[in-house]
């Protein structure tokens, strides 16, 4: 099975301390990997490294067997990487649901009508078509997460990076997210504190600590 993401002996430091070192991880095609760890262990930073938002201190990162030597190298793979931030309101770039879901396609130069059709179909697929014309900022936390996910999935990324996708959601919203994510066949790295949530998604669970990743049995 070909690997979508390879991290080899990656280390990260922030201004005052070492966050983690010697982190090695391989994520295969359509494999789901979950990462847990204490607060401040660098889970979100790790996702940002894979998304090409920050650069690791040491080590190598490969996407689809191509080494990412600088942040510029990620530009080629932008539409292959879908990143859902922890604070989902930061993700939105348009005022209404349909406009935001269409955004990535319109930015790629796809015509309005075609982008609209695709956005409607993804909203339908995720069961949120009724939110089409709603103001994004009036939606509940759970609805916002699913809308953000729709905005990511519309470009058909090969890799999904999800930072606390069920953070501050109620049980129903969490179940909806689990159902959606279980139906998505893509390489995924999921960072979460919710044990039951990640266990319902994947058996590949790693704990992040200063010394890197340890697979849980």
């Amino acid at each position, binding site marked *: 099975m070909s690997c979508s993401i390879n991290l080899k002996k990656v280390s990260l430091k922030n201004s005052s301390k070492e966050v983690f070192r010697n982190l090695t991880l391989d994520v295969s095609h359509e494999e789901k990997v979950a990462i847990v760890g204490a607060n401040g262990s660098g889970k979100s930073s790790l996702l940002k490294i894979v998304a090409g938002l920050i650069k690791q201190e040491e080590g190598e990162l490969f996407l689809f067997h191509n080494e990412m030597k600088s942040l510029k190298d990620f530009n080629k793979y932008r539409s292959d990487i879908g990143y859902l931030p922890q604070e989902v309101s930061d993700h939105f770039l348009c*005022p209404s649901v349909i406009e935001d879901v269409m955004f990535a396609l319109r*930015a790629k130069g796809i015509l309005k009508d075609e982008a609209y059709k695709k956005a409607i179909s993804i909203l339908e697929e995720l069961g949120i078509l009724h939110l089409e014309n709603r103001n994004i900022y009036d939606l509940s936390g759970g609805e916002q997460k699913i809308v953000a996910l729709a905005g990511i999935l519309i470009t058909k990324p090969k890799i999904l990076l999800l930072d606390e996708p069920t953070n501050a959601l109620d049980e129903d919203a969490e179940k909806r997210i689990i159902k959606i994510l279980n139906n998505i066949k893509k390489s995924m790295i999921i960072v979460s504190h919710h044990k039951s949530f990640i266990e319902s998604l994947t058996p590949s669970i790693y704990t992040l600590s200063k010394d890197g990743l340890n697979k849980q049995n």
Partner: protein
Amino acid sequence: MSKFNASILLVSAFLYSIFISFNTFEFIYLLPIVFMIYCEYKNVLRILKKLLFLNFFIVMIFIVLLIQDTLEEALNIYIRTNMIILFNLLLFSNSSGYDIVRALNELRFPKKLVSSVYFTLKMIQTLSDEFKKIKQTLKIRGFHASTSIFAYETYGNLFGHIFVKSIKKANAMEDSFKLRGFHGRIYLINNSKLSVYDLVLIFLVCMLFVKYIVW
């Protein structure tokens, strides 16, 4: 939800403000305001409260003008300022800031201006939400406004917190720009329609210009 088309509101606000700024007061100029009061009668009290609050500042201008000029001139400017502010408050009382972004987009303003206004509004909303949260926290934790050093330190911390938060938010937005392929414009769908209210409003505002030219 507003009865009016956002573009009509924006154009009416601009035309009426310009017209009133350059003309001396006449009762007929109150016609668009009367129409708007009729349309927004449920919110009139709330709007008048806002106007009353803003009058603290307008009265200052009135006093300065009174000292420098005649009572008639000061009164004229005082009334016209109130008319412009009241009309604008009535126009935008029911619309969210994002309606203005939509209006700018419909009126074919430059794309970069539209997206800049949108992100400015988004930032204002985020920071005002943050400010509300901090105010609540201060209340819950027993803080009382006073003139002590401690109170001023707390205010300093509060503004510092908002400043740091705004930088963090700006960085998070920048990340979103990179990840989602933003290159200077947002894409909005123009699907708003004109209602009878829009037509009456723009007619009344335009009539002021016609009246000025004819008489």
